[in-house]
């Protein structure tokens, strides 16, 4: 009895530590993704990118940037709503980070394997928009206000196709638990056979969700000067904008990798010896690269064009996708 209890306790402490570790790894992960983005962008633009910080190909550039942000003066304009203004970085960061609670890194490497994991992930991913909207309002800046409103409008337009595309996956897998969804893709990912359309819709909607080109109107620097974050500086800027954006990007990629590429599940039965987390990281990394690649290639759309694209193209398409999925399910074709 005692030993069992001891066993359980020890196990759960290890597990807890592991699970907390996942969350603690998020910040370094943003640094890595930030660095990769700098380098990939540079090479796509026929440049070298950072080469000095940390000596070897500038590996410590984002770390140095972070340290620089810490040293900077935190400026708040006189007319800002100070409380709301200061809360924003926490809201955006939290909203982005909460997704990871349900994302499985391996069969058991998940902080909480909720039965409604997918539902939860989609719900919390829209929290950060509240932060952006609050930032736009609290900054007392017209550009920020426009940025905040654009972010809110974008959220409403994109939440639907995002949810509908995910709903088709849930139908396909017959579960809302992300672990079950991943398991259902042993060994053929949904993106390859049942849900290619859903995958594309989800990617487009996720890009809009994390405000990256071509859907980066809420932070368009040439139009509204980083939108809601015009007035932010120092650590608030680093966390509220950069860290939140990268965490959200990693989170969305991880979610897409789980939903459509099978997450930690190996691609071939013969490759089962490669551990789950490695598969998960490879798949997520590929999607992150795709997002970076798209960002440095395309110009951005206009807000009204994005709305039209969402309502007139993506939503009808995702409804069709659901219909087809349902029909195939009924026909027991799958």
């Amino acid at each position, binding site marked *: 009895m005692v030993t069992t209890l001891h066993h359980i306790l020890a196990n759960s402490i290890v597990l807890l530590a592991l699970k907390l570790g996942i969350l603690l790894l998020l910040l370094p992960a943003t640094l890595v993704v930030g660095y990769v983005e700098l380098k990939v962008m540079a090479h796509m633009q026929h440049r070298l990118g950072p080469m000095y910080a940390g000596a070897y190909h500038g590996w410590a550039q984002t770390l140095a940037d972070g340290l620089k942000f810490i040293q900077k003066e935190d400026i708040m304009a006189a007319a800002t709503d100070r409380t709301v203004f200061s809360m924003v970085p926490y809201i955006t960061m939290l909203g982005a980070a909460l997704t990871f609670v349900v994302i499985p890194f391996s069969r058991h490497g998940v902080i909480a394997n909720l039965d409604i994991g997918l539902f939860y992930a989609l719900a919390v991913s829209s929290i950060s928009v509240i932060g952006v909207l609050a930032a736009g309002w609290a900054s007392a800046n017209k550009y920020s206000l426009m940025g905040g409103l654009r972010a809110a409008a974008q959220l409403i337009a994109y939440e639907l196709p995002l949810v509908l595309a995910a709903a088709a996956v849930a139908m396909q897998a017959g579960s809302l638990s992300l672990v079950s969804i991943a398991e259902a893709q042993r060994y053929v990912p949904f993106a390859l056979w049942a849900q290619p359309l859903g995958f594309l819709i989800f990617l487009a909607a996720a890009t809009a969700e994390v405000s990256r080109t071509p859907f980066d109107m809420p932070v368009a620097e040439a139009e509204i000067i980083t939108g809601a974050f015009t007035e932010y500086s120092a650590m608030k800027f680093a966390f509220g904008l950069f860290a939140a954006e990268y965490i959200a990007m990693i989170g969305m990629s991880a979610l897409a990798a789980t939903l459509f590429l099978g997450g930690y599940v190996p691609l071939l039965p013969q490759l089962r010896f490669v551990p789950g987390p490695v598969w998960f990281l490879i798949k997520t990394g590929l999607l992150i690269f795709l997002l970076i690649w798209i960002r440095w290639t395309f110009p951005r759309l206009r*807000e009204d064009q994005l709305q039209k694209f969402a309502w007139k193209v993506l939503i009808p398409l995702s409804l069709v996708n659901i219909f087809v999925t349902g029909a195939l399910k009924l026909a027991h074709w799958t």
Partner: protein
Amino acid sequence: MGTVPEDLTRVPDLSSTGGLHTEEMVLNVGPQHPATHGVLRVLVSVDGERIVRAEPVIGYMHRGHEKLVEQRDFRQITNLLSRMDWLSGINNEIPASLAVERMLELEVPRRAQYLRVILAELNRITNHLMFTGSFGLELGATTPVMYAFRERELIQEALELVTGGRMHFGFIRPGGLKEDVPRGFVELARRGVRQLVAKIPDYENLLMGNEIFKQRTVGVGRLDPALALDHGVSGPILRACGIPYDIRKVDPYLVYDEFEFDTPLGAQGDSFDRFWVLVQEMKESARIVEQALDGLPEGSHIGAVPKRLTLPKGQIYCHAENPLGELGYYLVSDGGNKPYRLKIRTPSFSNISVAAHMLRGAFVPDMIAILGSMFFVVGDIDR
């Protein structure tokens, strides 16, 4: 995905918004704003994201060139004029020298004329590359600007080899050029334009062929030709409206009538057309440079010029096709070695004066597309 309403110049009736009370907001774009490259300020009243009124405010960079030149001789003036439109120094200098030469009836050697054409066209390419890149940047595509600077660098290097400067050349002198070109210039210039021509398809595919780019530019900021003429709009912007006004063709100066080149014309005068004309003009400039390099005659780089330039009494208007449009100098001389008055008619000034009409009714993001495709240099507006 749809396009914006047909007539952008029509002011939407905003008083009746179905009971929903909306309020206009005055947005101060600039003088420090990433999309106004320089210190142009645009005061816009917006209703949501739609612009109700827009008024460009200029003068943040007024340096009083017209006053300064009244106290300077022509060598010093050349160096001043180079700084007006800082992207096209050589082109700024040429018409000033032409004015002096025509007043004094100076003979300019053919080699000097050819070299002037080569330098002017290389300079036009560097100018156009700058705007090719920055337009993409303003629409959110950050990569083309890097490619544009890569191509620009080689041509810039050729210009530096000859003039010793990268922006302010001060190289055109009444009667010819300051010096002859060094050995190696011909090869470098040729390499520069060939690399450019080889890379233009990249810009076309990255921007003009891109569906998002088309969404943002086709039908946006359409300029009515009659309005354009009324405001003295010139250069690629006027030609994008389909008006074949290119001073190199209409009133040929230097030796432009000896080369074969086309004047690309747009059809509708929207942002897309303006950008398209800009890119095509680089190809035409490259053609001119190749022809001029092939036919570069031997000879002197400067004609017989009196040591002290004293102009006869009189007035003359001299204009040339600057990369951004018509650059004209109205020179009034009272018989001294300095101009009594020099009116500088710059392309950007006239081109941007029409912006207020074009911005009315557009969306805020369209404002960026419109301003970005109006190709102006603030130093050229303010002088």
